[in-house]
Every structure is written in structure tokens, then in C-alpha cells.
């Protein structure tokens, strides 16, 4: 086994264990912290796959912003931080069955992709070329310009939606004393 393989197994194991803790932690805040570890593990896997830009995005957007948003959302709720309850309900075995079927189906499907069958070869282009290609693809009319422009609409919609839902107090409405 090469060093990269050992590292891959290590990071994969950390990611899997952290993900398991996310769904089994009785406290929501702990689950959020485990989620950060799981996301960091995915970032490490991206680095091993030589997708360094994605790895940085994973850290900046997912760990730096989305995990923080989840923690803020937990802190917004009144009692969730203290709640400890069973993590499964009556139909846990149905969920397990569905997950296993989905997992098996995905593995079977992915095994038929020819590119994934053999040993993956290292990428022959360097990272800057990849990043430049991504930049060109985003504004190329034949490639991803439409999804790119639609992404801005999506971002704007979520921005307006978040503001509308959170609705900051306009003028001198009742200010909550809690802060």
C-alpha cells in the first residue's frame, strides 16, 4: 500500500466515523461539530484527488459558512440545545433497508462506469490549468454560462428569502431583550 492509499483510508475512515456521529449524537450542537469534522474529511479527500480548488471551496464555504450557519440556527432555537432523545424511531429498520438498497444500487451503477473500473491514473495537468479551464467554462457560451447566470438568480432568491423570513425589525418595533 502506498502512502496515498493509507492516507485515503485514514481520511475516509475519519469522514465516515464523523458522519456516523452526526446522525447518532443525542445533542444537536455536538452533531453540528461532528459535521464540521466530516466536512473537513471530505476536504482532505478532495486534496488527495488533486481537486485543490474544490478542497479550498469545501473549507471556505462548507466549514467556514454553512457549518457556522447550522450552529447559529441551533442557537436560535429555544430548547434544542438541551434536548437529548433517542436518535431512532419505530421505523429505523425501514430507513436502514432503503439506505442499503440505495447504497447497493449506487455501487452497482458506479461499477459500470468504465473510468472508475481500473486503477485511477494521476492527473497529468497542473492545478492552475484546471482552475483556468473552470474559469473559461463558466463564461463559455457553449459550456456552463447558463447555469452560471442561473446561479446568481438562485443566490439572489435565497438572499431575499432569508431577509424576508428573518425580517429585521424596521423602525422601533419591539426589540427583544435577549441578546
Amino acid at each position, binding site marked *: 500500500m502506498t502512502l496515498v492509499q493509507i492516507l485515503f483510508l485514514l481520511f475516509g475512515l475519519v469522514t465516515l466515523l464523523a458522519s456516523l456521529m452526526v446522525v447518532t449524537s443525542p445533542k444537536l450542537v455536538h452533531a453540528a461539530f461532528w459535521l464540521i469534522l466530516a466536512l473537513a474529511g471530505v476536504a482532505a479527500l478532495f486534496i488527495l484527488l488533486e481537486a485543490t480548488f474544490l478542497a479550498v471551496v469545501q473549507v*471556505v464555504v462548507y466549514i467556514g459558512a454553512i457549518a*457556522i450557519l447550522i450552529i447559529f440556527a441551533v442557537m436560535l432555537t429555544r430548547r434544542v440545545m438541551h434536548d437529548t432523545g433517542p436518535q431512532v424511531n419505530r421505523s429505523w429498520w425501514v430507513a436502514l433497508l432503503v439506505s442499503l438498497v440505495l447504497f447497493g444500487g449506487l455501487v452497482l451503477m458506479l461499477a459500470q462506469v468504465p473510468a472508475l473500473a481500473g486503477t485511477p491514473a494521476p492527473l497529468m495537468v497542473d492545478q492552475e490549468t484546471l482552475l483556468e479551464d473552470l*474559469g473559461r467554462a463558466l463564461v463559455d457560451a457553449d459550456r456552463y454560462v447558463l447555469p452560471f447566470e442561473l446561479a446568481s438568480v438562485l443566490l439572489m432568491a435565497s438572499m431575499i428569502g432569508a431577509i424576508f423570513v428573518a425580517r429585521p425589525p424596521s423602525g422601533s418595533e419591539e426589540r427583544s431583550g435577549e441578546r
Partner: protein
Amino acid sequence: MPTDFLPIAVLIALATVLAFLVVLIGHLFGPRRPTATKLEPYESGMRPYGPGQRRMPVHFYLVAMLFILFDVEIVFLLPWAVVLRQLRLFALIEMVVFIAVLLVGFVYAWKKGALEWE
């Protein structure tokens, strides 16, 4: 190359080890003579009041949400900016459209006072 990230891995490992080591050594060798004052959350500091885990104002959520959105915008901007000099005018116009749409949301946030922290 993944090897470029070796220093980061070493740094993370060192930081983790150091964090545990510091706590462990203090735990092993430090004398423990607790008094009521010493056990306060902020010794010689502010006297805490109210429960520690209270509900946060919704404003934090809003700021985090806006942060995510502009974060994602940067992610789109960066690959484009790397190749900006090799692209045509068309690419510039596309990015202007992209930012203009986002500016609508930004102006909305501004007008609604979402960026103000009283």
C-alpha cells in the same frame, strides 16, 4: 499535488497534539485547590448573569446567510478572475450580469436594513 498540502497536515497534527498536551500536562501536574472565586467562569472578570445557553437574536442567522451567499459569489469570481485577461469582452459582460443580479439582492438587503446592527 497533494504533497503541497503536507505542511498543512503537519500543522493540523501539531496543533491537535499540542492542544491535548497542554491540557494533559496541566491536568497531571497542576495543583488543584479550588475556591468559589476560582471556579467562576471569569475569575476577576464580569459576573455572568442569566443562562449560558440562551436564544440568539435572529440577526446572527441573517448575517451568516448573507456571508454564505457572498462567499459563493467569490467562489464563482475566482476562476473567472484567473483567466480574465485571456477572455473576450463577452465574458466581462456575463460577469457584470451575474453581479448585477446579485446586486438586486444586495440592494434589497440594504434597504431592508439587514446589514445594520443597532
